[in-house]
Every structure is written in structure tokens, then in C-alpha cells.
């Protein structure tokens, strides 16, 4: 701004304050590090000194078995990824559609609203593992022509129906959180109900529900393992298969590690997205 600003030098008091702040930061970092090492150390000692540790290490954390089972488990894990990638877009479409139908007001839409409510209630009520069973074993038993009997795709359909119900509720919460004044101002511009939903409400709602939505998808990544109950050769089933032949559980730990490697990046991404949304919404406000 003015010349005096450029010539500004911190006063002795300010320098002293900065020294105090630095000193406090150093102290905080030291305390945090010591606390972390202490807790982790105690946990490690607690687990490894338990009486059964040696046999657990042999049957769950065996490096040789891990290497041997890895090719089989990772081949199965490829299926988990495919299931996830196919299911996710279907769930999004289904969830948005059901949520939008539920927020319509026109009398003609009543039957669809009823269907949407029944769908959401029923499919959120049934445990996902039961849905997977019913789809995987029940649908082929119907002997319908033209319907696949591939349990992998039937199981994926069950996941879509189950998660679609959850995601529709997430979207509905987002739609209902948009302030009525937004609808009023869309109305005054002459937008139709559908147009205000499409251009005004949904974009804002989606932004708002992104974190819980991604949370559901992290959950979906793990639940692809449920398809092991209908003998789909995905990571979990492959790991069990290995265990059946070699009597060692390390293959299951390998599958667990693979799932963690898949979910952690999405988890971090969700956190980052949530923080960014907060920063934008509350920029400069405190």
C-alpha cells in the first residue's frame, strides 16, 4: 500500500512472540511424537506378547504363504474391481432417479412415488448378504429365458438394488436440504418443476452430499466381497479357496491388504473433497 508498509520491520515484542510460538510448536510436535510412539509401542508389545502370538503369526502372517497365495487372490481381486466399477454408475443413476421421483409433487406421479418409497424401505430393510443369496440362487431357479445365470452379474444386481436404496436416501436428504428460497427464485424465473430440479436443486444437492455418497462407495468396495457367498471367484472366495487347500489363513490377510489399498485412496479423496467444500462454503466466515 504505502511506503511505510514496505519499510515495516517486526518489533522486538513481535519477534519475541514468534519465538514463543515456535517454541510451542516444537513442544507440541515433541509431545505428539512421544505419545504416538508410546501408544503404538504398547499396542505392539501387547499383541506380540500374547500367549498365542506365535501360532497366529504362523497361520495369519506367514510371508511365504502370502507370496504363494498372492497371484490367486489378486486375480480374484480384479473381479471385485470390475463389480465395483459396473455397480457404481448403476447405483448413482438408480439413487438419483428414486430420490427425484420421491420429491415430485404432481398427482400423476403418485404411483411412482409409492413405488419409490416401498423400494427404499424394503431394500434398505433386507440385509445385503440375503439379497445376494436370493439373486444368486433364486433368479437362476426361475429358469427365465433371456436372464443371465451368471452369479457374478446377478450378485452385482443385488448390490445395485441394495445400495441404490441407500444412495437414494442420501440424495433425498441433499434435495431436501436446499433452501425453499432457491425453488421460489427458480419459480419466479419461469422454470418448470423438472427444470428447477435439473438446473438448480440437483447440482447444489449433489455437491452437498458428495462426502456421504463417497462414504457409501467405500462401503460398496468392501461389500463386493459378499459375492463370495454365491461362489463368485473374487478376492475373498479365492483367499478361502487357497486356505482350503493349504490350511493357512495368510491368504485372507492378503485379501484384506488389497481391499485397504483400494479403499484408502478413496477415503483420503473423500476427506479432501469434504474439506474443500467446507472451505468454499465458509470462505472467510468465522
Amino acid at each position, binding site marked *: 500500500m504505502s511506503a511505510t508498509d514496505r519499510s515495516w520491520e517486526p518489533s522486538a515484542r513481535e519477534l519475541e*512472540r514468534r519465538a514463543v510460538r515456535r517454541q510451542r510448536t516444537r513442544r507440541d510436535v515433541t509431545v505428539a511424537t512421544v505419545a504416538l510412539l508410546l501408544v503404538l509401542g504398547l499396542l505392539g508389545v501387547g499383541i506380540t506378547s500374547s500367549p498365542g502370538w506365535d501360532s497366529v503369526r504362523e497361520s495369519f502372517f506367514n510371508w511365504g504363504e502370502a507370496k504363494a497365495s498372492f497371484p490367486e487372490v489378486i486375480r480374484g481381486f480384479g473381479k471385485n474391481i470390475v463389480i465395483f466399477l459396473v455397480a457404481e454408475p448403476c447405483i448413482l443413476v438408480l439413487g438419483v432417479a428414486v430420490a427425484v421421483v420421491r420429491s415430485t409433487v404432481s398427482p400423476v406421479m403418485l404411483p411412482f412415488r409409492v413405488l419409490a418409497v416401498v423400494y427404499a424401505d424394503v431394500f434398505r430393510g433386507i440385509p445385503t448378504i440375503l439379497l445376494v443369496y436370493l439373486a444368486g440362487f433364486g433368479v437362476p431357479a426361475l429358469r427365465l429365458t433371456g436372464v443371465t445365470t451368471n452369479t457374478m452379474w446377478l450378485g452385482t444386481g443385488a448390490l445395485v438394488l441394495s445400495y441404490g436404496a441407500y444412495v437414494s436416501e442420501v440424495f433425498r436428504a441433499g434435495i431436501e436440504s436446499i433452501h425453499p428460497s432457491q425453488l421460489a427464485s427458480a419459480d419466479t424465473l419461469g422454470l418448470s418443476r423438472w427444470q428447477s430440479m435439473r438446473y438448480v436443486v440437483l447440482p447444489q444437492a449433489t455437491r452437498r452430499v458428495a462426502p456421504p455418497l463417497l462414504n457409501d462407495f467405500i462401503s460398496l468396495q468392501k461389500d463386493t466381497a459378499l459375492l463370495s457367498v454365491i461362489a463368485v471367484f473374487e478376492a475373498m472366495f479365492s483367499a478361502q479357496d487357497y486356505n482350503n487347500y493349504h490350511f493357512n489363513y495368510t491368504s485372507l490377510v492378503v485379501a484384506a491388504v488389497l481391499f485397504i489399498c483400494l479403499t484408502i485412496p478413496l477415503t483420503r479423496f473423500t476427506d479432501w473433497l469434504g474439506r474443500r467444500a467446507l472451505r468454499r462454503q465458509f470462505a472467510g466466515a468465522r
Partner: protein
Amino acid sequence: MTALLEATDVRKTYGDKVVLADVDLSLEAHDVVCLIGSSGSGKSTLLRCLNLLEDVDDGVILFEGDEISDPRVDRRGVRSRMGMVFQAYNLFPHMTVLDNCTLAPRRVHGIPKDEAEQRARDLLGQFGLADQADKHPDRMSGGQQQRAALVRALCTQPTLLLLDEITAALDPELVGDVLRIVRELAEQGTTMILATHEMAFARDVATTVCFLDQGRILEHGPPATIFSNPREERTRQFLARVLPAS
């Protein structure tokens, strides 16, 4: 008489942007200081620095004789003796007005429930809100909400009250209600610092008026001097724009 609050050479920057520079401010008990100046001149930032919502980048702030700009200071202790009211009221929407007003007295100051509620009801009554005590803030008008926010700040019996453009979000009809109460508080001897755009009010009530421009207190003095005979050209320009032509 010693100063209740004394700020010396206060400086605040956001990155490269200097928001406050070389700000000196001193006030004694029962003073009413009005900060005037255009938007972005640093009025709100100054209040937030005094209340420790923002850390200053240089300078010293003394409150009741203690340096509160020291990083080691007990911030909650300082704030428990300072009240602040915001432009957007910032009442807690999930609580009734009475709960809003008794939260800090009960949880921070450890005052028993009955006593805290009695004091809150007395103050609400004084401010014409006796029948609003059990309502939630969203059910009240803006003027009522702002008066409730004032009561909430007063319930902890602060020695200094900071008011940040408290009438800026109200329509003209409601501004009067709130200003009348601030005027009463001033007459009762409450020490206050206000950032305000209400020039007529500042002229009537203030003991000192400070004109801020680009983060500096360009000029300060009794309202009569500032409004009738400002020293700086910049102050004259500002007043010419905001005061109705007479």
C-alpha cells in the same frame, strides 16, 4: 485513571494484504468508541483482533492491564470478560433464546441454573423480549434476534462489549429498536467499542470516534470534532458521502 484497553501499533496482514497497520487505540471504563469508515477499512478485523479471534502480526494489546496479545495468554479467560455481538446475530438456532443466554453463564462461569435464568429473564425483560424467552431464534424478527444476541453477550457481565456492525443486517424500522438499547447501555456506563455505519448514532452516543481508512486510524477524537471539523481530507470525503446533505 488507567486504560481498560490499550492497543499499540497493531498490525494485521492476510498474506501480502495489510489489513491493519499502526493502529493505536485506548479506552477507559465507560467510554463508547465508535469505529467508522467504509467497508473493508478494517473495522471488523480490529474488533476480531481485540477479541483474539484473529492473532495480530505485530503490536501489543493490553486489557485490564494484562497483555492479551501474548501467545501464552488464556484466551478463554480473556473472552469471558469481553462480550461480542456479530452482524449476523450468530444465535444458536437449536436452542431457545433463554438457553442461548444462559449457556455461557452456566457452563463457563459456573452460575447456578436458577440464577442464570433469572438474570437472563431480567435482561430480556429490560430489552422488551420477556415474552420471547422460550422461542427459538428463527421464529423471531431480525431486530428481536439482534436484541437477544445483545442480551446473550451481556449475561456474562463483560467489562467490555464489542459490537460489530450490529444493525447492518436490519431493515431501517428495526435499527431504531436495537440502537435505543445500545444507547441505554451507554447511559448505564457500559464500556463499548462499536463498528458502525450509523453516523447520527455515533455522533450522539460516542465519547470517541475513530475514522479508519485502509487499515489505519486516520483520525480520532470527540464526535463533535470529527463530524464538524475533520482534519483529514479523506475523512471529509467519507463524511460527505455518508451524511445526508444538510
